[in-house]
Structures are given as structure tokens and as C-alpha cells.
């Protein structure tokens, strides 16, 4: 199953290559000193309280919203929205 995926495949961008400018930024991170590794996760307190979760209900889009969503769809044929041919690998 193990398969090496290059960045062009991961990014779905033909011929994509890592850039020199961006690699320079990453080098700074690689070489940075972490003087307090216990800090990790301390500030990740953005969890939402169960009381704040919104109701699990289906909200129907308005007619105008539905119309615009269909208008935005790239391809339509005989009232069906068309996607590209899916291939199995």
C-alpha cells in the first residue's frame, strides 16, 4: 500500500515543485530552538462547549440560494450536473 506521493500529486497541480523561497522559511523552523517543549498544546483551548453546539437539523437553502448554486456548477446536461469520468485504479 505504501506509495510515495510527490507534491504535484498531493497538490493536484501539474509539474508542481517545491520552491526555493519557501524551503528557506522551512529551514528556519527546522533549525529553531524550542526552549520549552512543554508549551505544546497549552494554548489550544479553542474547543467548543457542548452547550454551544448548534442543533443537528437540516436547514433548507432558500430558492435563490439553490438557483445560484446550480448556476455556479461548471457543467450541466439535460438538467443533470455533469462531473468528469471517474477512473478506478
Amino acid at each position: 500500500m505504501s506509495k510515495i506521493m510527490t507534491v504535484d500529486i498531493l497538490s493536484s497541480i501539474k509539474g508542481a515543485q517545491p520552491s526555493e523561497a519557501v524551503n528557506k522559511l522551512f529551514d528556519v523552523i527546522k533549525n529553531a530552538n524550542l526552549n520549552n517543549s512543554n508549551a505544546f498544546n497549552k494554548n489550544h483551548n479553542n474547543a467548543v462547549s457542548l452547550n454551544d453546539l448548534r442543533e443537528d437539523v437540516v436547514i433548507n437553502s432558500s430558492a435563490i440560494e439553490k438557483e445560484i448554486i446550480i448556476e455556479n456548477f461548471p457543467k450541466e446536461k439535460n438538467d443533470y450536473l455533469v462531473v468528469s469520468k471517474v477512473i478506478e485504479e
Partner: protein
Amino acid sequence: MESQIHKIHQQLMAKEFTCTKLVQDRLDLLKSNTYNSVNSLLDKIALELATKVDAKIESGQEIGLLEGIPFGIKDVYMVQGTYTTASSDLLKNYKSAYTATAIQKLLDAGAIPLVKENCDSFGHGSSSENTIFGAVKNAINSDLVSGGSSGGSAVNVAKDYTVFSIGGDTGGSIRQPAGYNKVFGLKPTYGKISRFGLMAYASSTDCVGPIAKSIEDIRIVLNVMSGKDIKDLTTYQSEKISEESILNIDEIKTIGYFKNFIESDAIDAQVKADFLASIEKIKGKGIEVKELDFFESDTLVSTYYTLAMAETASNLSRLDGTNYGARIEGDNLKNTYSITRSENFSDESKRRIVGGNQVLSQGFSDEIYLKGLNLRDQISNNFEKDFKEVDIILSPVTPNTPPKIGESLNNPLAMYLSDAYTVGFSLGKLPTLTIPKGTGTGLQISAAKNNDALVLQFANFLNDLI
């Protein structure tokens, strides 16, 4: 207090001009402008709304403070039925199906949207040159960049085409163009304003904020847009900031600045001298000023870009031409995805998507992405420590004055490094305002999280002092 909104409100009520004339005049200015600040005009809806305001005034009814006030919207916000392109080829024909919460609140208050404003594509840039609508020119010197990514919004405010504009700030995208075009721009505390309907760049630092010509106008617009929104669970309930509360600075005894920002080799000599002169004026008013230690600029910039690229790679993966976006058909689904994305994303957006996928991939995530998260925590801890010692942190907005148009696109690393003074406050989720005084590109005022009122208070003091 100086306020363009109050002034126009009074003029409308006194029937010095009609709302229709006000809106039409501004639309004409936007249409004929040569700064490339406009992606699309919302003339039909704007004039319809103006007619309603005029009818209300004519019948002797009171109008709200924002009713009839013309404003601009960075072209990354959903406004139902309008083109929302993110200045990209991929979405150049995309129409919003719904309206962003922040914008809806302004519409509910009666403000009139005039324009979807030019910006860097998907917020990817610091110069507003990464756009299919042409580089946005600086309002003061049109040979220079407007800054970015909310460049069109800052220019429209600076040129009085809009009374205020709504920008988006992920790593400095409101504060830096505000500084480059000499207007006020606020990045509020993360979560103060709902991001629902803002096209996501880096969700953990994306902020909605106003650009305007006065602190009072920033306060008015901030109050209208703030508040908890069930559609963005990072939002919180916040108190409205009153005009009286920002009039005196009794609470501010001590401010600080980052020594290494000012002692850096990268800072322009004039920016440094002007900054230090501003500090002396503040000291002269009896406020204590402390020098603070902070992370090196390259660490801040690298941490920010590592995390922002990882998040944008994930957020933009949905743009594949299948559900929406300008699809370019390949011989199968995978090829359709990759041709669509290769042809329709700009070089800068591709650079960031590829960078993001690099750091998120196996083997790299530990030594780059997770380490970046760890550094972010250390930066936040540093701010917490600092705000136990000082009430406000003051810094220049940028190390240098705006570059010429054409220089930034050829040197992405230099562009990333130009964000050195803004990205830290984004990572810390702090409220930070650009005031167009004190250095050639202004000063940044930051306070602890949720302390947006203190930022406005100090800005008001500084505005009178400098």
C-alpha cells in the same frame, strides 16, 4: 471626535444632498479610477438601497447612523448574487449563494455596498499584485504598490471612494495596506467578528476588520460587526465599545516595544528614527516605556508562513472545478482536477499550496509543521508574559516603505520578510490597529486578547499626540 460616518449622516438628515447623489458620485469615482481598486461594482443594488433611504428621509423618518453610508467589500466576502472572485481565474465567474455574517450585519444596519475590491488572490500576497484585475496602485504614489492583501480596500478609503471598507487580515493584510496608504485599519481579536462567508485562507488567523479614515469610524463599524455567530464557533460574545470609553487613557500606564524589531539591520533608518521619536513623545506624557524581548523576525515569518501554507493547502483543496470553479476538462477526473488547478491558480497561490502540502506530508510534518505549532505556542506565551508588564505594545507596521510595482512578485522571500512586524500579532490572535502616523507606514498598536477597546483608546491618545 472626527468621523466621516457622523458627518455624512448629519448631511443626509439635513438634506444637504440625497443618498442617491452620494452613492452615484462615489460609484462614478470608483468606475473612472485608475488605481485598479475595483473588481466589480454593485451599482444596481447600491442605487436601489439609496432610493429607499431617500424615501425614508423625505417622509420625515429617522435614519440609523450607518443608513445610507457607502462602503466597500474586499472580494473575498460572500454577498448573495454578486461575483466573488478572490481576484482569481478559478473563481472569476463565481457568484455568492449567500451573504457573510459580518456583511449582513452592515446591510441590516443600512450601510450601502458599492464595490467588491481588488486584492491578492485568496489573500496570498503583501502587495495586491497577485490578482487577475491588475496590480493595485498606491493611493499616495501610483508607482508604488498599495500593499496587501486588502490593497483595493485601503486605496478606496484613502481616495474617499468608500467611507469605509471591510478587509480581511490573516498575517497583516489590513494593517499593512492601511499603513502604506495612510488610513486606519484594525485587525480585531481573533473570534470577535464572525468569519462565516469569508473565503478561508488560514482559518486559525483569518480576521474580518474595518479600514477607515478615523478611529471613531473604526469603532462604529467594529461594534456593528462584532458578536457571537452560531455559524462560526470561534466567535464570542463581546461588549460594545462606547465612544466615551476611548476618550481618555487613564488605564494605560505602561507601554512596551520590541527591541529587536528596532535594532534589526532590516529596518529602514528613517522608519527607525521616526519610531524612536514617537516613543520619546509618549514618554514626555508621563507614560512608562519598556523595551521587550521578542522572537527574531525570520522565526516569526517562518512560523506564520508554515502554518498559513498548511492551512491554505487544506482550505483550497476544495477548488477543483468539480462543484464550482472554472473547470478545464481532462480525460478523467484526476486530470480534470490537476489541469483546472494548474491553469487557474496563480504562481504565488501554487507556491503556497505546494509548501503547505510539503509540511503536512509524512516525514516533514514532525520537523516543520508540529514544530511550527510549538513555536506559535511559545509566541503566545511570550505575549501573555509581556501583557503582565505592559498595557500596550507599539511597533512600526513595516520595516520599510512600500516597494515599486513589479519588485515583489520577482522576490517572494523578500515579500514574506516584509511581513515581519505584523505576523506575530496574528499568531497571538491579538487586537492590533494601524494608525497612519509616527512612521512613513504608520504605527501598530496591540493589546492583550479581547482588549480591542484599549487599542482604540491608545490610538485616540496617539492621534492627538503625534
